[in-house]
Structure formats: C-alpha cells, structure tokens
C-alpha cells in the first residue's frame, strides 16, 4: 500500500485549440484520456503533416509510447483541434499492472501495436509517394491537392455569382468536395450562360452531412456537360477560404 501513495493522482489538463499536446520524437511519461474536445494525431514528413486520426471524448492518446516501452520516443504528434480537457494517466500508474497482466493479452497488445506502427508507416509513405508523383513541381498545389482528397458527395446547395445581388440564389448540387475545391452540378437553364465559364466566381452555401453549415467562395476552373441533358458540371477551386471553413471541411473529409 505504501507504494500506491507514490503513484501520482489523475489530473485533468486543459488545452486551448491549436495547442500541441505532445510532439513526435519526444520522450513521454504520460498518456491521456480525452474528457472533452477533439485531438488530431499526425506524423510529420518533411514539411507535411500526415493525419493518422482525429479522436474525441472517451478515447486515449499517447498509449503507443506506453506500450512500446520507456526508451521509445513518441511515434506521432498530438494537437488540440478545439479547446480540450484531457485526463493525464502517468505511465507509472499502469506499468506494474501491465507487466503482470495475463501474457495472452500482452501478446495481443504487442501484435496490435506492431500492426498499428506498420499501418501508420504505410500511411506516411503513401502520402510522401503521392506528393512526389502527383505534384512533382509543386506548380498548382490547390488543383493537385484537390485530386488527392476529393470525396464523393451529393449535397444540395444554393449558389450565386459574386456579381449578383445577395438574394439572387440558385439551386445546385455538389457532387464531390475536397479541402480546396468542389465539383458543382447546375441546371443549364439557371440564368445567364455567361456565368458558367472559367474565371467566374460563386458564393456557395450548403449543409454538410454532419449538420454543419458551409459557405465558400469558389472560382470556376472548368465547365462541361456531364451526360445528363440540361445539366452542367463545373470544377471549382475555393478562394480566400477562412481557417474555420478549412477546419470544418477537414473534419468532414476525415469522417
């Protein structure tokens, strides 16, 4: 019992949105349980952040370092995506119990850890490979990123030309979306055809499947018939996207 008194009690720490909780390569003595908020787990590869997971309340972070042992540094970084409260679990609290747990559970934990490390490494390699092959000269970063992370959707939206009055809204459908742009399908009958040409800009409003509103400004990059009579498909790139919109989109892209 005397030993137990030396074990630090569980503490809760508060992190502000954007705070780094731990950094890849650091040596840690704790893991954390998310009580409130959202945490982004990522690995760094050059100047890129490769996202591994977004975790929320009830989930645990920093567990890989505990399981890998005291001489192994953090394999990924963790950052608060919103104001977050985390319960701190010092490794010392669980070390003895972990060492004494039934060996079969340890075998399962070790094998799961190995698979997780392997999967995360593949994710990083895939990301590096993709950035090299798809974007060799870094010329049109927006357009190439749009190819990487495009997600198929079918969302109703309202849109208006940036040249129109704010209430001159038309209905369209978003067919795919990425962090940097979208594919917008509209009726060819919707107003004046001169709207629908590269270089024109639109303000687009929609509600994402997760219930969050989204308002973006986007410039037309390409226009084409999409096979459905009377419908036009436009490839659009976002312009001047505020940070909150990027984050909201980022959440949706990873969900």
């Amino acid at each position, binding site marked *: 019992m005397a030993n137990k008194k030396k074990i630090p009690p569980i503490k809760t720490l508060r992190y502000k949105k954007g705070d780094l909780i731990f950094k890849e390569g650091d040596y840690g003595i704790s893991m954390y349980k998310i009580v409130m908020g959202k945490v982004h787990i990522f690995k760094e590869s050059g100047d890129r952040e490769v996202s591994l*997971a977004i975790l929320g309340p009830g989930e645990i972070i920093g*567990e890989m370092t505990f399981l890998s042992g005291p001489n192994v540094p953090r394999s990924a970084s963790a950052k608060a995506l919103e104001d977050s409260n985390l319960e701190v679990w010092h490794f010392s609290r669980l070390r003895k119990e972990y060492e004494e747990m039934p060996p079969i*559970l340890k*075998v399962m934990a070790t*094998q799961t850890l190995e698979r997780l490390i392997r*999967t995360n490494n593949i*994710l990083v390699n*895939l990301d590096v490979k993709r950035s090299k092959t798809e974007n060799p000269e870094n010329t049109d970063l927006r357009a190439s990123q749009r190819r*990487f992370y495009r997600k198929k959707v079918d969302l109703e939206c309202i849109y208006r030309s940036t040249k129109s009055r704010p209430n001159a809204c038309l209905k369209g459908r978003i067919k795919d979306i990425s962090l940097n742009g979208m594919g917008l399908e509209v009726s060819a009958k919707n107003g004046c055809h001169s709207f629908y040409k590269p270089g024109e800009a639109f303000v687009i409003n929609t509600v994402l499947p997760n219930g969050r509103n989204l308002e973006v400004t986007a410039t037309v990059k390409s226009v084409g018939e999409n096979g459905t009579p009377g419908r036009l498909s436009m490839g659009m790139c976002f312009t001047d996207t505020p940070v909150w919109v990027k984050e909201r989109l980022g959440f949706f892209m990873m969900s």
Partner: protein
Amino acid sequence: MNDNQLLWAYVAREEDYPEDATIIKEGSWGDWAYVLLEGRAKVTKKTRDGTLTLGTLEAGAVFGEVGFFEVNGGTRSASVIASNGPVRVGVLDSHLLRKDYEALSLELKELLKALVVRLKKSTERLCFFNQTSN
C-alpha cells in the same frame, strides 16, 4: 513458457481451411479471436475501388481482435483468407480470454481497447487514401 505454448493453452477448437478459403468475412458478426497455428493468411479489406490486402499473417499471429474487443459493433472489420496453401487456426476460448480481460483495471481495459480502435482508424484511413490515389 514461450508465446506459442501460452497461446495453445487458450485454443478451444482447431479449424482447417484449404487455400483461398475465407476464415473471417468482413462485415460478418463475430466476437471471438483466433491464433494462426500453421500456414499463412492474408488480411483484406473492401474499398470502393476493389479489395486491398492489408498484410499477411504467419504462425503465432492472433487475429480477430477487432471483433473480440467489439470496437466495430461486434462485426468483423476485415477479411482473413488462407493463402499459399492450407491453414490451421485455433479458435481462442472467448470465455477464458474475456475473464482475463474483465479482471483488468478500467484504465488498462480502456487502453487495450483504444489500441484496437486506433488500428481500425488507421486502417480505414489507409483504405481511404488508397482509393483516392488510384
């Protein structure tokens, strides 16, 4: 006692599969885990663009942990298929294994489950990335 002897103590039943037979089917229900006793098996997952092989299992590998820890609503998150010849697996005694697991502290139970959840999430990201890069 080495790892293999230790796993044997938990084997409730042995099953044999011919080459290419499905041991675990993705999406099916199952809350038990297996140990690969002989042969090799591949782990696959369906993506929008086809089936992706996630890895190969060899003798001594414990699999079916996502089902055992019920992190996917009790359904299997990937398929396991006998490859390169016949395979013998041991079905681990769920009752015994769960008794061991339930005896752990709440923190340690959460920790083990968290690890399996992380593997599942990373695997899903891998499938997502794989299909967007094709």
